[in-house]
């Protein structure tokens, strides 16, 4: 087993994760498929021999087309899933948004859900109480805080989820689809907060299709292609590699923040 220096934050070593797809669920369907000689199930590798290490304080942009294994990789780093083979190691507390508001209970109020979600993210009761006002202020959903989450708009839902996750004292912050919902002021607030996380020396792992915000947020890009590591290195080269640089045309007006934010949708 290799030893890593104390500055290593994330180790992903030769990680493979495959999923089994079952095409037919009922007995009847399975019987029909068997008679016709079709496959009943199929396995595919969502991740195939992926290796890289991340130093503490690095800010990684994870890019790739839909279905290239980005979310699976994030779930492995988050600890939701375990790899089939290979190892994933992390140092310190992990927080993040694999999807905002995961586990919000629609019948409970925003306030109750904040406590629940914070507990799931590993916060204690005292810690949640201490941070509650900050969380409420960041989410900025006003009087809706005391009405059931089921009545929220998708934007409010995401705001609250993001507000909780971002207030966890983490060493590694994972962000996936963070800015897919929410209006422009909120997105700007989130990006500013993530910039703050980055500057505080926490490891940031950011999944995005928006070349602009990756360029702004990250100092290294990792690109996945059909579950394999296709590129690992410099931000500009990485963006060029996924050919996102010529599509959003922001090369011509680098100062334009509207595009950076807009492209995240």
């Amino acid at each position: 087993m290799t030893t890593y220096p104390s500055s290593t934050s994330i180790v992903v070593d030769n990680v493979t994760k495959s999923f089994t797809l079952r095409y037919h669920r009922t007995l009847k369907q399975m019987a029909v498929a068997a008679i016709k000689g079709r496959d009943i199930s199929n396995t595919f590798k969502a991740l195939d021999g992926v290796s890289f290490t991340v130093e503490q304080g690095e800010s990684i942009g994870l890019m790739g087309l839909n279905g290239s294994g980005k979310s699976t990789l994030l779930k492995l780093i988050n600890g939701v899933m375990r790899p089939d083979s290979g190892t994933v190691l992390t140092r310190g507390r992990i927080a993040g948004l694999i999807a905002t508001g995961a586990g919000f209970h629609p019948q409970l109020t925003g306030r109750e859900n904040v406590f629940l979600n914070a507990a799931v993210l590993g916060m204690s009761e005292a810690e949640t109480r201490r941070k509650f006002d900050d969380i409420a202020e960041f989410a900025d959903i006003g009087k809706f805080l005391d009405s059931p989450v089921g009545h929220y708009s998708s934007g409010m839902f995401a705001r609250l989820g993001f507000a909780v996750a971002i207030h966890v004292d983490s060493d590694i912050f994972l962000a996936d689809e963070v800015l897919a919902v929410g209006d422009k002021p909120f997105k700007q607030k989130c990006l500013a907060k993530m910039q703050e996380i980055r500057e505080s020396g926490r490891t940031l792992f950011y999944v995005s299709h928006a070349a602009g915000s990756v360029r702004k947020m990250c100092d290294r890009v990792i690109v996945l292609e059909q579950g394999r590591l296709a590129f690992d290195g410099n931000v500009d080269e990485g963006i060029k590699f996924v050919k996102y640089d010529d599509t959003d045309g922001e090369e011509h007006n680098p100062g334009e923040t509207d595009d950076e934010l807009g492209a995240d949708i």
Partner: protein
Amino acid sequence: MTEAGHVVDAPLTPPAPRAGLIEVFRRRYLLRMLVQRELSARYQGSVLGLLWSYINPLSQLFIYWFVMGKIMGRSTEMFAVHVFCGLIVVQFFIETFNAGTRSIVRNRALVQKMAMPREMFPVASMLVSLYHMGPQLVILTIIVLLTGWTPDPVYLLGFLLALAIIAMLGTSLALMFSVANVFLRDVSSFVSILTNFVRFGAPMIYPYSLVDARFGSFAQFYLFNPIADAVLLVQQAFWVGSTKDPATTHAEHIPDNLFAYGFLALGIAAVMLLIGQRVFARFENRIPEQL
């Protein structure tokens, strides 16, 4: 960016949470939150709220008292209390088993996205069921007090033993079947049929003396059923003392060596719990992708 000086004083470890029942109890705060969520979500938007937990068992008690006691004319003394003692235990078990089996599929939003010991969910289901038992216990206590029942400390310990048996047995089955339900949703339907049998496998609407009389020496096999033992322990604690002549009732309707059977049942439940934990750990890994 390390110049900002964020030094992490922690070892490199696999990020997946340590699983296992011990870990569940180490994260008691989260467990409490999950239980509270279940409870408050259940009564949200209902005017009577928690009162329903009293109305429901009361109505059942009335039905058993009226149909079994008055219409069918069962001769067992204090028949409604006899049934109710069984009902409390059986409800606790059935609710744990049923809700526990569905718990992981029902919480799939959390399971798929958050890293936490997944044993949390079946255990939380058990605790919610235990909590629901509270109102039933209050009703039972009031009724037996009205009939001149005096508590017997040894028998009350037997009641706690019964709770421990059911809690462990229910949790073990909930663990095993909750995983199975992830792979095949038919399991939850199967479980609800299975629980129908439980109602009649315990001396609830018939007294144990009847089993003893009909089966003779085979009655001891009946007592290998931990649920039957638990029901008898509860009847010993509450029903026996509510009859006119507790000593005679005890001699007639409660088997000898009930405590020995009770501890045997506790042992069985403990072994089941270990097996349940093993089975859960074996398949837990594939849960998120199968949901």
